[in-house]
């Protein structure tokens, strides 16, 4: 494993937005000027104490931070190994970690004087978080969502509409998250003068992976302080699910130079990695270029992007944030996969044991935790990012359990 020093972190990404060989800015020329503008604004505001104060106040009073670190005692006991703690991002306003980022990016939009917000969404959590912040700031909001996801996540679609957003069903390609992102890019290229694109994950062209990471890093900063306060030490392991990877990077980032903290990013194993029906580019993909960045992708030998499969719409994406690609190659984070079946089992188990109903995305991290915890000692600590709540998924779960609601 290559050591990640604080010096290395300070220079990653570089000025071109590269994390090692990954990241960068692979977009059509029309968008470059807007990305340059965003980059220079963010360089300035990220050093500006007033902006940071504004962001922190929104996180405290609107999002409801800090989110608790909760010890899942019954589940830990049942698994019979490490003490498991949940970082409760599900308790945030709108029910997931996504809102940390939308609050931050909406502040940037405000500073740029943009009155129109666009966003892509898979599970609908980022769409809801974007629609929420747009409502609060009185901005117009358009959310692009794959037609298949519109059906899978009807509750969140209605939430977005209640919040005043227009939900645009995307019928091109595979009709899921990647196609929603294509369509959002097409809208942005057309309306670049008055529109701010709130990307929901740590992917996309520079500077998005960096700024989304920075906005989400509040998760790891809090978890670090809470772990020290509650247990007197840093966690031995961190576990988070990885689709694009924003909740994972948010938890991991403040611990990256702590060499003794192990990290596990859990991808969507779908029907199992061996079947090819999954959404696990870090576990089973190869590097390529999509959606503005170089990263690991699910692709065929001709460089065409493959259909993905996951029980969770939010992880059903063929790419991943470039910083994760870098961390994989550096050996700093271990990327693993949990399949649909063990994910569903973990969903039920945690719901019944702790009275906390996780999102199906989050349940992937819990499924891996159920494998990891028994291999560790009772004096050891795992922090799992409980990235979102599962209310949105009850229709899917019922269907998989053969129940009609």
């Amino acid at each position: 494993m290559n050591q990640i020093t604080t010096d290395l972190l300070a220079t990653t990404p570089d000025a071109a937005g590269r994390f090692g060989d990954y990241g960068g800015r692979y977009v059509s020329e029309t968008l470059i000027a807007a990305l340059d503008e965003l980059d220079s604004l963010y360089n300035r505001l990220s050093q500006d104490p007033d902006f940071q104060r504004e962001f922190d106040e929104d996180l405290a009073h609107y999002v409801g931070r800090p989110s608790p670190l909760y010890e899942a005692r019954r589940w830990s006991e049942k698994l019979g190994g490490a003490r498991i703690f949940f970082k409760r991002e599900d308790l945030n306003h709108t029910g997931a970690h996504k809102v940390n980022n939308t609050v931050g990016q909406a502040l940037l939009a405000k500073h740029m004087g943009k009155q129109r917000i666009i966003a892509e969404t898979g599970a609908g959590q980022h769409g809801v978080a974007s629609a929420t912040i747009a409502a609060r700031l009185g901005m117009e909001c358009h959310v692009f969502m794959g037609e298949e996801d519109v059906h899978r996540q009807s509750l969140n679609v209605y939430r977005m509409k209640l919040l005043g957003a227009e939900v645009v069903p995307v019928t091109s390609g595979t009709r899921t998250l990647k196609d929603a992102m294509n369509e959002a890019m097409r809208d942005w290229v057309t309306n670049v003068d008055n529109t701010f694109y709130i990307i929901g994950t740590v992917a996309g062209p520079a500077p998005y992976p960096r700024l989304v990471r920075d906005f989400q890093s509040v998760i790891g900063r809090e978890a670090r302080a809470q772990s020290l306060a509650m247990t007197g030490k840093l966690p031995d392991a961190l576990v988070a699910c990885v689709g694009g990877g924003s909740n994972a990077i948010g938890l991991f980032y403040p611990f990256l130079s702590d060499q003794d903290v192990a990290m596990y990013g859990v991808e969507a194993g779908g029907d199992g990695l061996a079947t090819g029906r999954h959404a696990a580019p870090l576990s089973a993909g190869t590097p390529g270029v999509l959606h503005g960045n170089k990263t690991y992708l699910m692709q065929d030998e001709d460089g065409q992007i493959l259909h993905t499969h996951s029980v969770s719409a939010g992880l059903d994406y063929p790419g991943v944030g470039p910083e994760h690609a870098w961390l994989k190659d550096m050996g700093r984070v271990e990327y693993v996969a949990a399949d649909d079946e063990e994910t569903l089992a973990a969903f039920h188990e945690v719901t019944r044991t702790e009275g906390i109903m996780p999102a199906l995305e989050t349940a992937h991290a819990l499924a891996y935790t159920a494998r990891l915890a028994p291999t560790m000692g009772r004096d050891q600590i795992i922090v799992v990012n409980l990235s979102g709540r599962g209310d949105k998924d009850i229709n899917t779960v019922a269907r998989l359990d053969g129940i009609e609601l």
Partner: protein
Amino acid sequence: MTDNNGRIARRFAELSAAGRRAVIPYLVAGDPLRDISVPLMHRLVEAGADIIELGVPFSDPMAEGPTIQRGHERALDKGVRLRDALAMVAEFRRNDADTPVLLMGYANPVVGMGFDCFAERASEAGLDALLTVDMPPEEVEALNTHLKRVGLDNIFLVAPTTPPERVEKITEVATGFVYYVSLKGVTGAGHLDVDSVTEHVALIRRYTTLPVAVGFGIKDAESAAKVAQAADGVVVGSALVQLMADRAAAGDGEQAILDAAAALVAEIRSGVDSVGDSVGDSVGGSVAGADADKAGTA
């Protein structure tokens, strides 16, 4: 950076000497029929095309409007990939040694093939240039090394949003010609602003003596004629892709589709040729006074 002696430079030089602009049709490789592309390229040349732009199908064509997106999807469904597009170029080249062909597409299929391998195969096939929509100058260094090695031009986009200092940066790495994207939007959009095109083409000419072609939003002889007032070349894409898709959907066979496509390109040709040759010379600044309102309608 215009030291290439390739077909593209030659073709623009010939056109310039004759006081004409280039007509550059865009087609998606393998669309609307798997085997139509090579005969189509020959027919379009007969109908007046000067350069052929062959689109490489990609699963995620982010810069395309619905018309060309569907073209990519149809071609992918027929199994057409980058290597097939290169094979079409090679086949075309057997009967046409002069007409430049450029591939337009997205980075990932080229990344997937490997830059060195792509350069070798493209060179063998007789390809002249590559335009990767999502590879701006900042990301192109490794690819360019290989393209240069085999003498392929790398075509770059300039957009309405590109500031002057960036135009300079782009023209430093561009070869062949500069492709000006006539509007903020995707291919096939309907809001072409001729005055803005004229202004931006003049801006580009301040930094380079390379020819400037204009694409996105050109549909017919009238819009082509307006753009030809300012530019050295006119690209027509969505209108052609749509026309052929409609014919194929209506059950027309290959011959009827070829006839329809050739008729559209001939119409564009006449529109472009209706423009006088006062601005045909592509040397910097001469276009600034062009009056777009005088555009002829074919």
